[in-house]
C-alpha cells in the first residue's frame, strides 16, 4: 500500500511493502514497529535507529509527538491522493463554525450576544476548568448565531456552545 503523508510543507511518499519493509521516497528501510502496552505510544526501529512517539488521531488527521516536538500529519493513500489532485483537494469551507468546549467546565462569561459581529480573536466564551479561566476565541470574523449555553452552566467536552456564521 502506498501513502502520501504530509507534515507541514513536506510531502513523503511511503510504501508499506510488508510488516518489516517500507520504502520512503524511493529508499528502502527495514522497520520494526510496536505499540507499547496497547497504548497510542509506539516504538519504531528503523535501520537500527530507535524512536518512540505518541501518535494520536484527530479530526484533521494525525498528531505525532516525538522527542518533545509535535508534528501534525495527514496520511492519504495513493487512490485518495489521485482523486484529490484531480478534483481539487480542499472541500469548500463550510459557512458555519461551531465552537465546541475543549474540556468540561463551567461557563463563567459570555461577552458577546446573538447576532453580534465578531473579529478573529474576539473572546466568545470564558470557561472555568481546573481553577483557570480559559478564553475561547473566534477563529475568524463573522456573526454570532446560536448561543446554546448560559452563564453558570456546566458543559461537557465537545459540547457545541455557539456558532459563528
Amino acid at each position, binding site marked *: 500500500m502506498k501513502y502520501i503523508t504530509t507534515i507541514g510543507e513536506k510531502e513523503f511518499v511511503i510504501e508499506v511493502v510488508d510488516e518489516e519493509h517500507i520504502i520512503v521516497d524511493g529508499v528502502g528501510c527495514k522497520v520494526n514497529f510496536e*505499540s507499547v502496552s496497547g497504548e497510542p505510544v509506539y516504538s519504531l526501529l528503523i535501520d537500527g535507529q530507535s524512536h518512540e512517539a505518541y501518535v494520536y488521531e484527530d479530526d484533521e488527521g494525525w498528531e*505525532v509527538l*516525538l522527542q518533545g516536538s509535535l508534528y501534525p500529519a495527514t496520511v492519504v493513500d495513493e487512490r485518495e491522493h489521485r482523486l484529490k489532485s484531480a478534483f481539487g483537494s480542499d472541500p469548500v469551507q463550510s459557512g458555519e463554525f461551531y465552537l465546541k468546549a475543549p474540556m468540561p*467546565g463551567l461557563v463563567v462569561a459570555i461577552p458577546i450576544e446573538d447576532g453580534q459581529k465578531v473579529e478573529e480573536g474576539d473572546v466568545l466564551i470564558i470557561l472555568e476548568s481546573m*481553577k483557570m479561566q480559559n478564553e475561547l476565541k473566534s477563529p475568524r470574523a463573522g456573526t454570532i448565531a446560536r448561543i446554546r449555553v448560559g452563564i453558570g452552566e456546566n458543559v461537557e467536552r465537545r459540547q457545541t456552545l455557539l456558532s459563528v456564521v
Partner: protein
Amino acid sequence: MFNKVLIANRGEIAVRILRACRELGLETVAVYSDADRKSLHVRYADEAYLLGPAPSRDSYLRSDKIIEIAKKSGASAIHPGYGFLAERADFAQAVIDEGIAFIGPKPSSIAAMGDKGVARATVTAAGVPVVPGTEAEGSLSDDDLLKVAPEIGFPLLIKATAGGGGKGMREVNKLEEMPELLASARREAESAFGDGNVYLEKLVEGARHIEFQILADTHGNVIHLGERECSLQRRHQKLLEESPSPFMDEDLRQKMGEVAVRAAQSVEYVNAGTIEFLVDGEKNFYFLEMNTRLQVEHPITEAVTGVDIVKEQIRIARGRTLSRQQEEIQMNGWAIECRVNAEDPYSNFMPSTGYISHVLLPTGPGVRVDTGVYPGFEISPYYDSLISKLIVFGETRAEVILRMRRALEEYKIVGVRTNIPFHQSMMDSHRFMAGQFDTQFVEKRFSIDKTRKGQEAHPHIAAIMATLVAHQHTQRSAHVIQRNERDTSNWKWMGRWERIHR
C-alpha cells in the same frame, strides 16, 4: 504531643504529607470529595472520610466538616498543605480553638501576611524594601483603582488581596484595558479564594522572582534554607523552579537571607514559610509577599539542603527545636523542578481532562517524582491542573539539565495532554541553559515551536510513524469487517487488539 494527623488537602501534596507522617510513625486521616474516592491520598491514608461533592466549596473548603472529622477520628493535628484552607487565619484559629494542633503558622501571622497592606507596613517597619503599590490602602473600588493607576505607572499588576499562586493576577499595560482586566481578575479571585478584592502593584520589568525558604520554631529560632529561582512563569503561574538561582552570589544570598529572616520575625513567624522577592538586574531586591505555608516547589530545597521540610514542619508543631541551626545549612549541588500540568502546550495551555490509561515514570539516579495520579485515575475538571512534580538533582546545573532532559523524554502519560513538551523545549533553550531569563521570558521571548529550530528534527520519522499507524488502522478495519474469515494480515503491531483479546 499529637500522634494522628488529618491532612486537609488532596493530590500530590496530600500524598507528600502522608508519607512524612508515615515515616514518623504518625497515624493519618485523609479527607476526600466525591471525585477523589480513588485518589492516592485516600488509598495511602490509615483512615479516609468523605467531605462532599466535587466542587472545592462543597468539599476541601468545608472547614466545619474537616474539623468535625478531625474530632470524630481523634486526629490531634491538621496539616493544611497549600491552597484550599492553608492561608485562612480563621480556619487555623478554629482548629486551635478545638484543641487541635495546626501544622503551620499562628493565625495572627497568616492574617498579617495575608492582608497585603498589613504585610507591607510590617516588613517596611522592619527595614525590608517593598514594590510600590496600593496594597496598604485596603479594598478599593474599581473607580479608585482606575484613579490611582496612572500614579503607579504602567505596566502594573492587578493582584488578588487574598491571593497567591498567580490566581486573579493580571498585567495591565494601559489604562483603557484596565476595566475589563479588573473584572476578570475579581471573577477569578472570587472563585479561587471566595474574595474578589484586588490591589495594584508596579510591575518591575526585567525582574527575577527569587524566594527564600524559612523555618522557624516555637523557641525563637528562625533560619533560611537558601533561595529558589522561580522566574519561569506563565500567566503568573510558576512552571519550573530551581535551586540555587543561577543569578545568585554568596554575598547577595546572605543579604537576602537575613532580610527574609527579619521579615518572618516581624510577624513572629513559626513553622515553614516563604518570602518572595523581586530582584532587578542591578541586584536590588523588593519584598513581594510571604506565603505562610508549605510551597509547591519545596522539594528542590530539600534536594540541595538535605532537610526534609515537611518532617521539620511536624517537628516544629510538636514544640521541638529546629533540627539544624543556620550555620549547619549548606546548599550542595543543584536541583530543578518541572511542574507537570494537564494542559496542552500546543493549544494555548488549555486544561486537559481524562482517564489516565498508562504512566511510565522516569526513575534512576537523581530523580524524584511527587504525584497523586496513577494509571486508572481520572483527571477531573474540578481542581488544579498540577498532576505531578518532576524533581531532578545532581552535582552541577549542567548535569541536572541533561538529567532533566532524559527524565522528560522517559516520562509517558497517556490519557491527558501534558506540558512535558514545553519543559523539553525549555531544557533545549539556549537562554535557559545560560541562565538568562526573567519573569517575562516564557510569555515574551519563548515559544515552544521556535526553540527546536537548529535542533535536529525528525519530520520523516514522524511521517513514517503516522503512516504506519494509519496503515494499521486500515488493516484493522479490514480485519474487523472480515473477522469471520481467516486472518492473513498478521501484522506485528496489533498490540491493542491482542490486549483486548488477552
